[in-house]
């Protein structure tokens, strides 16, 4: 086995210059089942739509995408990654939703010298000290979107805020992001159990504390539970709610409906952003799937755009990993979010927006962009990254 490997290495060295590949293999591993499945399905749909509308090609190479469900379970994810890097020998892996899957499987991906483009989470470690030449965060760094909300609360003169998030690293990173920009007083910082169903006790405590605003980060079903119960308790009439965009996208709006109206949230993208690339994306997505896209779909769509641009830049010679990495770093894409480029730590430099859930003229409940909060914003950890 070892001799074979050496022989192959010599052969490759003799062959010298990398040849243009005839296809690119993408391993798309996402959470497609269980309570977090809706997010992964939107990502898969966004990614596959981008590839399809590009004639089943990425950067001129025919794209072979194999889609796998990680069930939001790191052990299942580890096996799938094993298959991707050893058996299928994919060139790129992408698609994960949750940091509890991404962080444990990332060493195996990066050690095999496979590229990973994150469609969602951008953890602090991978943006800072543990940044890696083969890892790219295409969506955002975990602190960016809640940080924008902290800035919004400053601008609105809200000086006493009640914070709530689930007790896990993503929850703590999110509240840290908020606190990095928010300058006022913190009435209370509550951490709840991941997957909690009932928030009556927390909501009663919020009402009693009488803060100026409540900032909550409760992704997925937790956010739906919380908003329904908060509005049923009537507290929304006394204390306004603010949230990062994860709990206020089209998927949550469809599930909660009327009680969502008036909810302020922040995001790097909105379906009503006024640019040609966004109109193209939103129209194509609605036509294909019959629903409005979420930010998750947009993020995965952009991963496909980045790959397309980078492969084109190296003329399909994706086996020269150094050159391919350079091409991703400098990829220029026509993103639905508008401004986008990679920072030196492979995290985005982009704009962040304030959105509000409104009832439009036709009575449809949806997000409306209120304004820009950050322009060309970079994350707080870029200084800690020494890219190898």
């Amino acid at each position, binding site marked *: 086995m070892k001799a074979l490997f050496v022989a192959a290495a010599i052969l490759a060295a003799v062959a010298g210059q990398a040849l243009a590949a005839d296809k690119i293999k993408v391993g798309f591993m996402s959470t*497609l*089942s*269980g*309570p977090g*499945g*809706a997010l992964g*399905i939107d990502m898969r749909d966004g990614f596959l739509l981008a590839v399809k509308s590009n004639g089943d090609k990425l950067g001129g190479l025919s794209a072979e995408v194999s889609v796998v469900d990680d069930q939001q379970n790191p052990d299942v994810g580890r096996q799938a990654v094993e298959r991707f890097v050893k058996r299928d020998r994919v060139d790129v892996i992408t698609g994960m939703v949750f940091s509890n899957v991404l962080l444990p499987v990332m060493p195996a991906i990066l050690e095999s010298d496979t590229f990973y483009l994150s469609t969602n989470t951008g953890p602090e470690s991978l943006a800072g000290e543990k940044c890696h030449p083969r890892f790219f965060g295409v969506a955002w760094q975990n602190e960016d979107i809640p940080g924008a909300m902290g800035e919004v609360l400053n601008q609105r003169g809200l000086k006493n805020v009640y914070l709530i998030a689930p*007790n896990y690293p993503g929850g703590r990173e999110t509240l840290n992001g908020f606190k990095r920009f928010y300058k006022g007083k913190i009435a209370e*910082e*509550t*951490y*709840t*159990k991941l*997957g909690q*169903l*009932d928030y*009556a*006790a*927390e909501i*009663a*405590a919020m*009402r*009693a504390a009488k803060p100026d605003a409540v900032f909550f980060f409760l992704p*997925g*079903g*937790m956010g*739906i*539970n919380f908003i*329904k*119960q908060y*509005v*049923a*308790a*009537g507290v929304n009439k006394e204390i306004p709610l603010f949230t990062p965009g994860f709990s206020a996208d089209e*998927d*949550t709006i*469809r*599930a*909660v*409906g*009327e*009680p969502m109206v008036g909810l302020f949230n922040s995001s790097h993208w909105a379906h009503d952003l006024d640019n040609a690339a966004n109109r193209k994306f939103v129209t194509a997505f609605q036509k294909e799937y019959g*629903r409005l896209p979420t930010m998750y779909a947009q993020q995965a769509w952009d991963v496909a755009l980045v790959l397309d641009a980078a492969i084109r830049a190296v003329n399909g010679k994706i086996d020269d990993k150094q050159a391919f990495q350079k091409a991703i770093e400098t990829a220029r894409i026509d993103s639905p979010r508008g401004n986008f480029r990679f920072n030196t730590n492979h995290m985005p430099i982009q704009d962040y927006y304030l959105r509000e859930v409104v009832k439009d003229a036709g009575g449809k409940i949806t997000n409306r962009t209120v304004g820009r909060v950050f322009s060309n914003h970079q994350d707080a950890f870029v200084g800690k990254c020494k890219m190898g």
Partner: protein
Amino acid sequence: MPLTLIVEQLLNGLQLGLMLFLLAAGLTLVFGIMDMINLAHGSLYMIGAYLAASAIAASGSFLVGVAVAIAGTAAIAVLLEMAILRRLYRRSHLAQVLATFALILIANEAVRMVWGSQPILLNMPPSLSGPIDIGGFTYPAYRLVVIAAGLAIAVLLYLLVARTKIGMWVRAGAADREMANVMGVNTTWLFTCVFAAGAALCAVAGALLGPLLAVQVGMGENILILAFVVIVIGGIGSIRGALIGALLVGFVDTAGRAFLPQLFRSVFPEAVAAETGPAVAAVLIYVLMAAVLYWRPSGLFPTRA
């Protein structure tokens, strides 16, 4: 801490307890009487919530939705019992766990095929969607309805089990299945009925809790864990145990989340309190379960001598 807040938190504990009771009552009957571990109990709760959401959207009436959910879920349960579960009663618990776990996966995918993978809309009737004022503090009207419904069902179940002939058979089946069989109780028929009744309670829980919780694929698994804690504390097979266990879990969990963080902050330094407060509050009900198991290994109200 103001008195009204304490009263409100007590009500919250009662409400959470009664909501768990609806699920635990069915689970404990099936477990106690048929000696069957049914992990798919949570799936029936999910199906109840989805049926209620669809029926409410189609009919515009909340009550019609609840009725359709109960009838539909009970019908599905009868089919399930006759086609599959009946074959599992005599098998080992491991076989039952494996088979009903498979049912969870099948139910999740079936719901995804019919309703899609995204959470769906189920809101409370507009007349109950706000808070009402009771004696100086406000409380969500809808949660009061859940409390009332939970209490009514608890009383009804008590009367049914303690005062009727069917109830007597159920108690006999829970206490000693074979003896009941020998004494002429038609257990095949009884098991189907009990299973359908458990499923109907699931549907009530799904329909009533849907407006407070996310109606989504996999919603049953989360709440099923709490229901198992409840029946282990209460004693498997006992309706009274399920009620007391559910109320205990409701009060302890709510009290932990409401009062523990402040308590920790007054005792420990800020950094330690911020780390340990939420962690301890999260495991409190499991500590309660462990304590009950230590002193009363078969629960607070064991049905078997």
